[in-house]
């Protein structure tokens, strides 16, 4: 609740034990799968900032950005299916704690939107799932 505690999407994924891609400086850059691919579960995010819906709230424009989070690399057995659905449930439940997104000012709200069921990919033999977060941010106010 307010304060200085902040949480980005990448931090939330890291806290759930997912491996993220990192750039040369070691900073998480999760818009691509980590290379080489780890044995543990990993996450890839995709920010959809092309679609913007504007509404006026007290002089500031509220815009929305969608973040698609895909979690991969769960084993093809029952344990992988269950741990994938558990991580998905944690992401859904903790989505509202997110209040920062790299490059965006003033995240006011983060809601979990649609999600896929846990699916199994036959080619790479793993379980995977996706969830979409919708982040509202203010634009047009001085920080």
């Amino acid at each position, binding site marked *: 609740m307010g304060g200085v505690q902040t949480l980005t999407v990448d931090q939330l994924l890291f806290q759930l034990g997912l491996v993220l891609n990192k750039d040369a400086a070691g900073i998480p850059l999760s818009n691509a799968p980590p290379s080489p691919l780890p044995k543990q579960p990993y996450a890839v995010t*995709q920010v*959809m900032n*092309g679609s913007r*819906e504007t509404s006026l709230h007290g002089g500031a424009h509220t815009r929305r950005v969608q973040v698609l989070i*895909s979690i991969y690399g769960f084993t093809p057995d029952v344990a992988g299916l269950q741990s994938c659905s558990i991580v998905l449930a944690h992401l859904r439940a903790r989505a509202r704690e997110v209040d920062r997104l790299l490059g965006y000012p003033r995240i006011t709200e983060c809601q979990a939107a649609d999600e896929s069921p846990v699916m199994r*990919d036959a*080619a790479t033999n793993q379980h995977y799932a996706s969830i*979409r977060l919708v982040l509202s941010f203010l634009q047009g106010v001085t920080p």
Partner: protein
Amino acid sequence: MTWTENPQLRPMLLALAALAEQAGAQEAAAFLREKLNQPGSGNKWPGLPNTSSAPGEYPAKQSGKLLDSIDAQPLGQFWAFGSFNAPPEAWGLEYPAPGHVARPWLSKALADPELRERVFHAMWEVFRH
């Protein structure tokens, strides 16, 4: 002297609302058909007929299966639009398989201000006449 409700008013409004809902759903389906019927501005892969979409765009038309499945139909007491009897790529574009990048087409359309504008206009045209 008492006020009595016009018995014709409620059915008239409900009929008009149903017409507006149908017009909005059909306009949304037309919007999706228009967006999914064009080539993208990304890579040109061998074996695919059209240029693929770049990240952030609507998916480009390749086989046309997703395009053919876009429709607006009455579903119960509501009108629904989207992909009916959806091909697997409709799902795979929304939720990417390992090694793939998503091209969200339905969630992108739902947040698209152009779609909202066009649906509002179509419904307003029904109410205006």
